[in-house]
């Protein structure tokens, strides 16, 4: 986390705010609720209190405006700059402005007002930007549900104001996974138009063949309607589709766009209702089959006929000698299957039916 220079903060814990005008995108009551919830996020973990004024000058004056809106710090039209706020202080200090050229929402459909307000009010209380991708004070917008403050945010605001003397312990959201943690395990992995996506917790890494450094991205910032936890994923390049599995549901992506008509239930593939989760999935281009791994067994799905092959499920250990009996994630490259289980990666030759190399899971992440 970071503070502003000279650790600017309010000299009193009882701060006033006023909503000067409202966006036409939402009901007035929705705006009131979003702002109150955003302030509560910070008062939950500090001794701060927020009193609403309906006229006159408050410490934090909240308004919506577009382009040049009176502070010589103009907005830029749709997207780009969403909002800004000033650090604690007299006059414009603490004031918080939202760009009216954005569309404000109370869900993931466009920019979620509660999330942006919680971030901006962090600035109005003295927090600057965090370099931690999972932190609320990270500069780039990302939609997420649940409690918005990470450990990093809580430590930062309490360094300014101390803890809430009578707060029930809030559970901050977990920080971003460290790609070079030797004990790193994967949730899922897939190809996507020549890139490789590796899913872990609420994030995915995007690996591009020509760029050595993987880019870590929040799942929700790319696909707000996909759950924060992906179990398995695979690409069917013939159909230019990526299928994402989470629990008993599956979503289809065409590039970075969600395909209409999804999510669907995984049992539509022909899996019995007893299957509640797919651990890993991988499409074998040479055979047109997609292998679905569940516990110690796997299924073979024929993409051309859209049916499950007969004689399945079969044992992973029997059919993939040398492999572990369970799989967390799998990808297929040029005749080799790469199986990931816990912090080990198995390079399995599909033709000679044996494990050729055993690597650390995160060697794929340039570690």
């Amino acid at each position: 986390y970071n503070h502003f220079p000279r650790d600017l903060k309010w000299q009193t814990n009882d701060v006033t705010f006023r909503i000067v005008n409202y966006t036409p995108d939402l009901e007035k009551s929705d705006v009131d609720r979003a702002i109150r919830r955003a302030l509560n996020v910070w008062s939950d973990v500090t001794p701060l209190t927020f009193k609403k004024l309906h006229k006159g000058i408050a410490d934090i004056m909240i308004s919506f405006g577009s382009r040049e809106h009176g502070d010589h710090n103009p907005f830029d039209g749709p997207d780009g700059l969403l909002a800004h706020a000033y650090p604690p202080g007299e006059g414009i200090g603490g004031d918080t402005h939202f760009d009216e050229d954005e569309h404000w929402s109370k869900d993931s459909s466009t920019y979620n007002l509660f999330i942006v307000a919680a971030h901006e009010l962090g600035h109005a209380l003295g927090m600057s930007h965090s370099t931690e991708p999972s932190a609320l004070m990270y500069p780039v917008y990302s939609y997420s549900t649940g409690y918005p403050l990470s450990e990093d945010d809580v430590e930062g605001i309490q360094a300014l104001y101390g803890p809430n003397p009578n707060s029930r312990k809030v559970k901050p959201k977990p920080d971003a996974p460290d790609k070079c943690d030797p004990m790193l395990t994967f949730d899922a992995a897939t190809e996507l138009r020549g890139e490789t996506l590796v899913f872990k917790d609420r994030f995915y890494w995007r690996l591009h063949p020509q760029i050595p450094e993987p880019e870590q991205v929040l799942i929700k910032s790319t696909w707000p309607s996909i759950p924060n936890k992906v179990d398995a994923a695979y690409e069917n390049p013939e159909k230019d589709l990526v299928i994402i599995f989470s629990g008993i549901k599956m979503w289809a992506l065409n590039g970075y766009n969600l395909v209409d008509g999804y999510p669907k239930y995984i049992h539509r593939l022909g899996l019995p209702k007893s299957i509640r989760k797919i651990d890993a999935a991988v499409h074998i281009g040479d055979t047109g089959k997609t292998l679905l791994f569940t516990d110690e067994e796997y299924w073979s799905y024929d993409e051309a006929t859209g049916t499950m092959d007969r004689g399945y499920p079969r044992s992973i250990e029997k059919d993939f000698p040398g492999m572990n009996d369970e799989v967390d994630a799998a990808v297929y490259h040029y005749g080799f299957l790469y199986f990931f289980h816990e912090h080990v990666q198995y390079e399995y030759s599909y033709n000679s039916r044996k494990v050729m190399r055993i690597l650390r899971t995160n060697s794929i992440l340039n570690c």
Partner: protein
Amino acid sequence: PRSSAGPVPSEDLDDWLLAEKYLRHFYDLPVGLQGRRGEPSGHFTAKIKEMQRFFKLKVTGNLDENTLDLMKEPRCGVPDVGE
């Protein structure tokens, strides 16, 4: 390879101007000409590195794809460094 003396293709120019505007707004890049793609000023390169360090990108000082992608993400208007 494209000669750096030739006219800069328009998409390169757009990216360059976007980057200059971004670095000026968020990383306090001084006003004034900052060279151009292929011949960036020292200030420009230093600010690119500062932004790449902040976002844990590979610190190259170049306006590479990852860096440009990030500059195009919707974000907060408060600067990432300094006053």
